């Protein structure tokens, strides 16, 4: 937890020597508290102060990276409990569980599902991020065979190895040296062995506790064994337990500065019932999970969860935007209507959704308005006659249309004359104010 200026002041030499550039030590302490100065500007600071201040300035939830290379996932570093306060920082990772009791063919199939899970959504590539290789058999050789298969078939995919057996862990981890794997399954019975294997493979250690007391105890002990990167599991399995423990962990880390739980959380959502699994995973997305383990990947479930994660992790202060271009909806011909709107993603989704639903093929020009909706963009000078006409001219769309007619949103009816002036030969038609008026409007023209 961050220290106040006065608390920092107590740790300073109090000589008011001005070598740091501030008139007094107190002024320097205030700057430090606001993170506008750094401690190394003080030449006389004690080792003790350095250590205390260093600890206090560390992020309350430790950053841990899962995997290496292009598919690496950053976790932790969260700063708030509610997304309206500030953007949630690092979107959670979805991991699909693969048991070492499966046949090689079935395990390979699950790996394929993970590899082929990537979809493009509003310009972002979304995918199942990781695999969770589970030593259900209890047999070290089986876990290693599965690890080998994963390393061969999906070498880029981040890996979590789950076992209670340090020897099995060591053999499996050997396939992922330097790849920031997570070794999950450290408990009170195997902590020392697991910590050793994790350190050897430079893997983060996944603590598998039975409750929050035990969890805090285990992370402290692991720290004593030289482990810094951890992911933590309080043992919560039921949805209500996940909400309770994740809430307590996030609050304790952020509001109490309680370091033993200042790590990314791993949650388990696997259920027989796929629909219920989707909802439990959704809860973990919303309420502070950093790794969400699923029983399987399937396209509909992936799409719903990717979309939810994208929604929850958007910056509440920055509107989502879609790319500026002319989108074709259906298969528009030279006579099909041509409409324009702004690039706020919600505006785009709603307008394109209404057009799709009424099944009238159209061209929809989406103009970059810095993510503002139509009326706001117009008021802010981002959706003006000159910008619209420039966009239309530069798009070269003219050649595709039989008649040069542009339909503008009803909210900016006032622009129609000015656009006509700037786009000679074009007819500007005023469309409905709200997207839900589009079906009636378009059908009436057809």
């Amino acid at each position, binding site marked *: 937890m961050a220290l106040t200026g006065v608390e920092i002041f107590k740790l300073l030499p109090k000589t008011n020597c001005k070598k740091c550039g501030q008139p007094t030590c107190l002024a320097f302490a205030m700057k430090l508290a606001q993170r506008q100065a750094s401690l190394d500007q003080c030449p006389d600071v004690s080792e003790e102060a350095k250590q205390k201040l260093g600890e206090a300035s560390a992020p309350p939830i430790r950053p841990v990276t899962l995997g290496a290379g292009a598919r690496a996932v950053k976790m932790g570093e969260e700063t708030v409990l509610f997304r309206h306060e500030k953007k949630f920082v690092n979107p959670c990772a979805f991991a699909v569980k693969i048991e070492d009791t499966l046949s090689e063919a079935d395990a390979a199939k699950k790996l394929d599902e993970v590899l082929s899970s990537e979809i493009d959504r509003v310009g972002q590539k979304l995918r199942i991020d990781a695999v969770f290789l589970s030593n259900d058999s209890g047999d070290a050789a089986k876990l290693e065979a599965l690890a080998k298969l994963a390393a061969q078939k999906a070498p880029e995919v981040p890996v979590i190895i789950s076992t209670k057996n340090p020897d099995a862990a060591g053999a499996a981890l050997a396939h992922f040296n330097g790849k920031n794997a997570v070794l999950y399954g450290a408990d009170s019975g195997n902590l020392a062995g697991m910590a050793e294997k994790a350190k050897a493979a430079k893997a983060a250690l996944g603590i598998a506790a039975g409750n929050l007391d035990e969890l805090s105890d285990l992370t402290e002990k692991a720290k004593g064994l030289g482990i810094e990167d951890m992911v933590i599991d309080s043992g919560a399995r039921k949805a209500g337990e996940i909400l309770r423990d994740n809430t307590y962990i996030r*609050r*304790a880390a952020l509001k109490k500065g309680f370091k033993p739980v200042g790590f990314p959380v791993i949650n388990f959502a696997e259920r027989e019932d796929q629909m*219920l699994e989707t909802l439990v995973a959704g809860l973990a997305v919303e309420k502070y999970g950093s790794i969400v383990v699923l029983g399987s990947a399937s396209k*509909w479930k992936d799409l*719903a969860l990717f979309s*939810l994660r994208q*929604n929850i992790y*958007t910056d509440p202060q920055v509107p989502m935007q879609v790319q500026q271009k002319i989108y074709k909806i259906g298969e528009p011909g030279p006579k099909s209507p041509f409409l324009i709107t702004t690039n706020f993603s919600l505006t785009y989704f709603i307008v394109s959704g209404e057009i799709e*639903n009424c099944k009238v093929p159209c061209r929809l020009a989406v103009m970059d308005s810095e993510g503002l909706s139509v009326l706001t963009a117009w008021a802010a000078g981002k959706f003006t006659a000159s910008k619209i006409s420039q966009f239309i001219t530069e798009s070269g769309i003219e050649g595709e249309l039989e008649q040069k007619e542009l339909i503008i949103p009803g909210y900016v009816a006032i622009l129609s004359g000015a656009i006509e002036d700037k786009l000679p030969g074009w007819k500007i038609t005023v469309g409905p104010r709200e997207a839900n008026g589009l079906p009636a409007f378009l059908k009436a023209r057809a």
Partner: protein
Amino acid sequence: MPFTPPKESYNGKIFELGLGSGEKAVAIGGENVLSFHGFEGSTPRKPVIALEVQDIVPDDWPQTVRDVYKDVYGDPVAWALHCQDKLGAQAVALRLAGTHPDKGDISAEQSAATVKKVLEAIKVPLIVLGSNHAEKDTAVLVKAAEVAKGFNCAIGKAQEANYKTIAAAAMANDLKLVAMSELDINLSKQLNILITQMGFDREKLITDPMCSALSYGLEYTYSVMERIKLAALAQNDPVLQPPMLADVGMYVWKVKETQAPESDLPEWGGLAQRGIAWEAVTASSFLVSGAELLIMRHPAAVEAVKKFIAEMEV
């Protein structure tokens, strides 16, 4: 190292609101903590899910939902009874979609007769909704309120443009009122204040901060709900203490993800499960962010959400 649970307690409490009467009556709200936070406070009531019924054949619902109700379309009484008896609905939400000027313009008198028939047929509580045409809803809901007197229904939605008449009708007939504003905590607060300034009892209000669908603005509704709930509890703001409604079905079942067949978009997976998941994820997210009352369409999505609610009990 012992872990001290950092519990939060609040001064505020959500109003408890009852709907319907007799054995099948339900109540929502009453909690003094965030949703499902029974581990640090009191959550006396579980969320309630109403199934949506319409007064006309809903030609804008996708086939996957229409199929569920194919035997009862066009007969709101049979449809409502199907929801109550076959699908085990805790409540029914009758949307008078056919009163919209573009959808048949059914008269206020005629739709009131429909409301009356449905009320007399079912035992579960009824929520009566207009077509969301601010002007027409005024006439329709005034007549509906008259026939609903004595049934402890909720009517709505009262919006900035039409709240006076609708709130007066709810007050005169002793009904609960859904007040909807557009995705802004301050607008919700303002509308609730305007309605209570007319003498309407704020403990009979249901706040609808406006719903949205997964991928289509879910995060806005989600965060507005969290902010309203925190204001109600932590700041003890009585204006924001009515329970909240998420009118999920109507937002979900018009988006592309619940309509596009797998043959068009193989990377999206099977349409049947995708549509159900879309409604269930949207609904469960809004339960987590603060809604106490949901209106949904697909019974399989309702089933999933009920299982989720059961698992949230600790």
